[in-house]
């Protein structure tokens, strides 16, 4: 079970000061009063969401809406700037197919590494390996360095070991979109099986038909906020309508005036402001 309570997350763009500005600041050319207050990006803004045990939650939204950030906050990979996250049980995030993989190690060694990174002991991992190896179906190539693997093979590798022990909460980000037809079917079946064992799944995908089939509930994230949340049919229909109406969804990060973020404002650099200015048209177009 996961409980997000009024979670906000501010993305920190690089705060480093470019050398040219450093020089300007050290000379008399710099006058403090000349700076225009820049604006701050929030990847998530006041999101409250509860995923109960045994539930499969789908997450939808256009690119840059905050879906991945939401999953990362759930996985405690990111600590929210404000708000609280409570999760119970073993949470296994599968957010990136190549996370933690070392290209020079073999497939089998990488499976061990992923198992250890997910908090299993060496003995547990060794017990899991045969089944995971079997599920991945990579044959003798499991002993080759993964530098020789294709994306689909990497997906098989990560998915197999990550789901070998049914986690209490499984977080999947776009992982389903890769792999060939046969493996896709296999992984779908496994997610079904995990859900049948009263495990919780949060699935983030652009495959609306898949979400419709698998999920009990769908949350629509837009501009870092929770725009809609409810039964799959309703949410997906509203999202489809939005996509048709708003043909080409531009990056839609929320922008807020910096009044409540004074310390960051003072540190923000000129290049950042230039970037904000460049982003201005697309942002106003979308929002």
């Amino acid at each position, binding site marked *: 079970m996961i409980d997000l309570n009024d979670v906000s997350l501010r*993305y*920190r763009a*690089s*705060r*480093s000061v470019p050398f040219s500005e450093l020089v300007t600041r050290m000379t008399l050319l710099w006058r403090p009063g000349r700076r225009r207050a820049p604006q701050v990006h929030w990847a998530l803004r006041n999101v409250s969401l509860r995923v109960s045990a045994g539930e499969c939650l789908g997450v939808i939204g256009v690119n840059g809406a905050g879906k991945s950030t939401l999953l*990362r906050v759930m*996985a*405690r*990979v*990111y*600590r929210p700037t404000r708000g609280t996250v409570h*999760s*119970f*049980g*073993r*949470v296994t*995030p599968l*957010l*990136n197919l*190549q*996370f*933690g993989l*070392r290209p*020079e*190690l073999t497939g089998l*060694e990488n499976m*061990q*590494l992923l198992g*250890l*990174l*997910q*908090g*299993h*002991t*060496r003995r547990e991992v060794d017990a899991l390996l045969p089944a995971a190896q079997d599920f991945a179906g990579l044959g003798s190539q499991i002993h080759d*360095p993964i530098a020789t693997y294709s994306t689909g093979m990497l997906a098989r590798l990560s998915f197999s070991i990550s789901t070998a022990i049914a986690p209490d909460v499984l977080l999947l980000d776009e992982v389903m979109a890769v792999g060939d037809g046969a493996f896709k079917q296999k992984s779908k079946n496994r997610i079904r099986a995990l859900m049948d064992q009263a495990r919780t799944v949060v699935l983030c995908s652009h495959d609306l038909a898949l979400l419709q089939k698998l999920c009990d509930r769908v949350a629509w994230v837009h501009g870092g906020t929770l725009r809609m949340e409810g039964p799959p049919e309703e949410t997906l229909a509203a999202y489809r309508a939005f996509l048709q109406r708003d043909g080409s969804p531009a990056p839609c990060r929320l922008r807020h005036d910096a009044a409540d973020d004074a310390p960051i404002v003072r540190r923000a650099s000129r290049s950042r402001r230039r970037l904000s200015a460049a982003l201005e048209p697309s942002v106003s177009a979308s929002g």
Partner: protein
Amino acid sequence: MTAFLAKLIRLPASPRPPAAHLLQALELVRFLARARVATWTRNRLLGLWWWLLEPLALAAVYSLVVRFAFRGTYDNYPLFVLCAVIPWAWFAAATSAAGGALRGSARLLHSASVSHLLLPTAEVLAHTYRFVAGLCVLTAVAAWYGFGPSWSFAALPLVVGVQLLLTVGIGFLLALANTVVADTAHIWSVITRIWFFATPSLYSLDAVPAEMRWLLVWNPFTTLFAAYRTIFLHGSCPDLLGLLGVALVATLVLVSGALLLRQQEGRLALYV
């Protein structure tokens, strides 16, 4: 104690006792270190042999330089220098690798909730394996110069342990700094270079003017290099009180580095 350590390194929540968490963290660190060693050895012609060849090459270079350039500076000068150069190579390589550990695993930091302390520790551990090979070469070179192993070697694990504490501690601080300011790696390479020459490494403490000597006493590597030399060149017990002082400083650095890194966990991923 185990509960505190387990809380410090923040392992995933599970019903396991703290000791099991620590064991799991240790297994992960060892595996990561092994993975690092694999990057050094796989697809290399000489693989692990480089661990012996590199310090041997260093020894050869210093012997030749001394024979032709600094004739008669000190007795057994090549050995004298190697007692500083080999431990220093470990420190410099391990700290810079630990410093890059978090920035280098950006993908991991963005995708999994792993204790940030484990990654720099693993880098240091991998370099420690390598240093052990270097110590074997140092022992062989010492024997070549007529200083066979003696009972003083019993103090070697202590000296290595103190240096390890310091290396991990500085590694933590660098890993944190490097995540926030990407220039840290460059700054650190300059600092290590200056630090090496500001330490009695190629010269002895006696060669330093008396009015400057108090400054060098505050340098932990003055004590450490002297300890290595006492063990290998004099076959006697190193200055234990001095080592205790260095150990205290190292512990302080280690604990503050660990706490700082731990405090920023979950935020650092947003920087890299």
